[in-house]
């Protein structure tokens, strides 16, 4: 199994620095963006930036990019399950009242 050798992959410090700087910049960018009038897009922009930042942390700080297939599978299933919880419940919230009668 190939992953074994890769597990000990040592991430160069340059990568850490790059990721770090990006994270800091994005933090302030997202703070600034919130003062711009984007209407309903506000939340989507903020979340996209957050997702991007989180991805960087997972891939590099947490070494998933160099990790085994199983680790990647776990990360993906975690995200998938969270989405199931959020989207399936929201699908109820979004469609309430479609029938046009309260409580249906």
């Amino acid at each position, binding site marked *: *199994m190939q992953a*074994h050798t890769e*597990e*000990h992959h*040592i*991430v160069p*410090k340059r990568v*850490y620095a790059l990721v*770090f700087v990006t*994270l*800091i910049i994005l*933090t*302030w960018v*997202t*703070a*600034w*963006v*919130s*003062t*711009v*009038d984007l209407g309903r897009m*506000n*939340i989507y922009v*903020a*979340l996209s*930036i*957050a997702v991007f*930042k*989180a991805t960087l*942390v*997972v891939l*590099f*700080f*947490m070494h998933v990019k160099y990790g085994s*297939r*199983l*680790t990647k*599978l*776990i*990360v993906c*299933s*975690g*995200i998938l*399950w*969270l989405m199931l*919880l*959020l989207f399936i*419940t*929201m699908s109820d*919230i*979004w469609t309430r009242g479609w029938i046009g009668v309260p409580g249906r």
Partner: protein
Amino acid sequence: MASHTSAIEGHGQHEGSHDPNLKHHFENAEQQKETATLGMWAFLLTELMFFGGLFLAYFVYRHWYPVAFIDASNKTDVLVGAINTTVLICSSLTMALGVHYASKGNRKLLVMFLVLTLLLGGIFLGVKGYEYHDKWVHHEIPGEHFECHGCRDAGHASLFFSLYFGMTGLHASHMIIGFGVLLVLIWQAWKGKFTAKWYTPIEIFGLYWHFVDIVWIFLFPLLYLIDRVGKPLL
């Protein structure tokens, strides 16, 4: 899923049995380390779903009461929030570097970065405490005495603050637990318990710490940054 049997193949005997850190029920150090890492990942999965419930509540209520959420969120201090986010990201970096030096067997730098992580985590918690105090002074804690001055939909603003305290409180409690573990790890690292061959506790603690960081990466925009149009950032 690929089987791991190849890793064990041909090891009838305990080749690593002289390693004091090897538990009796493992075949070798490699298996033990992978086991620990996998365990931590599975645990983080659990943690993710744990926070998931709060995120769900957040999205439902924000969807219903956008006005209340804008006004209530505008009561938080972005500057403080952004600085704290920066602090936490710095601590993530120092943690990553700590793991890095652990893998090189550099005891001094390992200890140093762990201490830095601890300090940054401490600053984060301190700032959080300051913010809580501020909310307390302004009666922005849900309950009987709750007030939300200048909020347009004060009736629903309470939900925002419930979520604010629920989410940041849960996050902070994770930080505090991390803080405690970190203290132990620093002590052990100082004693020279970890080597380039075996530093699993440092590595899996790093995963935990980064996870806590990620949660905050989401909490910051969701709680502090709703529609601050026209308000100065600084």
